[in-house]
């Protein structure tokens, strides 16, 4: 590839990739009442705060935002803890048939969500968990465990077994070995797993629209879908402001912890 061709190609791609982001910001700035009925290419005003407030209060993104924050943080943490314990059992402890346990837990991440939905709905309707926060938290945790388990297990197999031996000889219990030897040493791996699962739960739409309905239970992506339909007539500024709100947490995580953020998905390529 000639140097010039290459530079033109790369520059073209950068522009193509930036245009949608630019339009997102510029049109979210436009005052909703002054929206001209067609997309603006230049800054039409500065009503971002107002649009954000409409999306947050009137369109109900706010309630869902808090609910989703709860789901992502709690389920991310719970899943990482549960997965780390399982990885500890499979890698370090003398569990019988470790490969069986591995596949049992890991298989949860192979299947598309669709195969779980109908029975989950029935199960939740019977157990009174439909449209409750605790119900969504349970299913999100279960959904987040398999891949977190995979990431943490990979990390744990790279640790020298001498560490466990030494701790055992010093008379440490399993619990002590787990909390004082393994957890501190794979802190970065645990962080990567948490960020990955936080993002996965935050971005979920399908479980949200299937297992919940009311605004204060619905996760944020489901709320954005509702907003997208409800404000279709009044125009894009409020919808795009909503899209900005729901993207902010993952975008900030990405920009601050880029290495950890990508580590989850790139783990399989190394």
């Amino acid at each position, binding site marked *: 590839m000639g140097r010039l061709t290459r530079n033109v*190609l790369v520059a073209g791609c950068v522009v193509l990739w930036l245009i949608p982001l630019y339009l997102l910001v510029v049109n979210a700035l436009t005052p909703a009442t002054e929206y001209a009925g067609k997309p603006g290419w230049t800054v039409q005003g500065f009503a971002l705060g107002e649009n954000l407030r409409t999306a947050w209060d009137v369109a109900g993104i706010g309630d869902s935002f808090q609910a989703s924050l709860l789901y992502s943080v709690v389920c991310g943490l719970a899943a990482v803890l549960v997965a780390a314990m399982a990885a500890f059992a499979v890698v370090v402890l003398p569990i*019988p048939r470790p490969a069986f346990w591995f596949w049992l837990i890991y298989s949860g991440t192979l299947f598309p969500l669709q195969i779980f*939905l*109908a029975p*989950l709905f029935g199960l939740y309707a019977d157990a009174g968990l439909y449209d409750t926060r605790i119900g969504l938290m*349970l299913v999100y945790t*279960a959904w987040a465990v398999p891949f977190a388990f995979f990431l943490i297990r990979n990390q744990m197999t790279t640790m020298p077994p001498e560490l466990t031996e030494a701790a055992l000889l010093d008379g440490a219990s399993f619990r002590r070995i787990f909390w004082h030897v393994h957890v501190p040493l794979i802190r970065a791996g645990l962080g990567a797993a948490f960020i990955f699962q936080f993002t996965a739960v935050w971005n979920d*739409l399908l479980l949200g629209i299937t297992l919940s309905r009311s605004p204060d239970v619905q996760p944020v992506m489901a709320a954005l879908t509702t907003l997208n339909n409800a404000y279709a007539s009044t125009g894009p500024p409020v919808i795009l402001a909503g899209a900005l709100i729901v993207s902010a947490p993952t975008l900030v995580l990405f920009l601050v912890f880029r290495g950890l953020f990508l580590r989850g998905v790139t783990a399989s390529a190394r």
Partner: protein
Amino acid sequence: MTGTATPASGPGAVRPDRVRRRTPVRRRVPVRTPHQAAQAGGGRLGGPLAALPWALPAFAFVGVLLLYPFLRSVYGSFFEDNGFTSRFTGLDNYARLADDPIFGRSLLNTLMWVAGTLLLPVLAGLLLAVATHRMRFGGVVQLIIVLPFAISSTATAVLWNFMLTSDGTVNQVLRGIGLDGWTQTWLLEWPQNTLSMIVASTWQATGLNVVLFAIGLRAIPRETVEAAALDGASGWRMFRHITLPQLRAVTVVVVGMAIVNSLKAFDMIWILTKGGPSRSSETLALSMYREAFRLFHVGYGSAIALVLTVIVVASSWMYLRRQMPDTGTGTGTGTGTVKG
């Protein structure tokens, strides 16, 4: 393998005084291979059952909320079920799939998604990774391309809805540069609704492939490239015969992930077209949802879900095999250290 394994790797991170203290008894210490551990150091480790409580929470979550629903779905696909009454019909649901024109269209759309994802995000990812490799500001370019990856597909879909509607940005640009004839009702007719959604997902998904390919490129030893350059290889020949073969491992992962993700694509389509108009842009993931939760054909929806699952698992098999070389054999954990 002997009764007790001697660790292959050096004591590394362990403090020297500890190493000295445990050296004499080292051979009696069980190392991770469970059955050996149960014999040699069983009393110490509390027997094989001591580990179970550690795995049980994970198993409980996955078993109750994922594996049980999975099996229940398979079982339910043999029933005619409208959510209130159900009747055993054997393989009827699967027989119906074969004659259902909507399922046929859905399968075709799914194939278009897979082919389109392999063609656009994977190829563009490879191209951009090679183009920005060792380029000045290459890191910045990669950061910009991967930025949409940090945005959810729901938000991406909302943004692209704004661009693809009939009076959206895309048509505005086409009119602006005098290509009025090219303007389309992008989301209202098949096949351009499926195609434009594939483009929208390309915007989001390419960045990840760039990052993955970039990791692969960095792993290519410099010597190989220099040797090839000395032998007179450059440009296309260098890429075809040196770079590409070395990227094989990464390519397997990227292609596997691209196929699986395109099969699972739901959010984008649900928001942009809801599978419509008149179910023309549905993929299997959408058809299942519509049949089970909008039309209350729960058994039929489960049958579609099972077809989708079989396709997903079969197509991820290639890269799964690579991903876990040490668990597929049945000896399980820790082979990395015990092998030596």
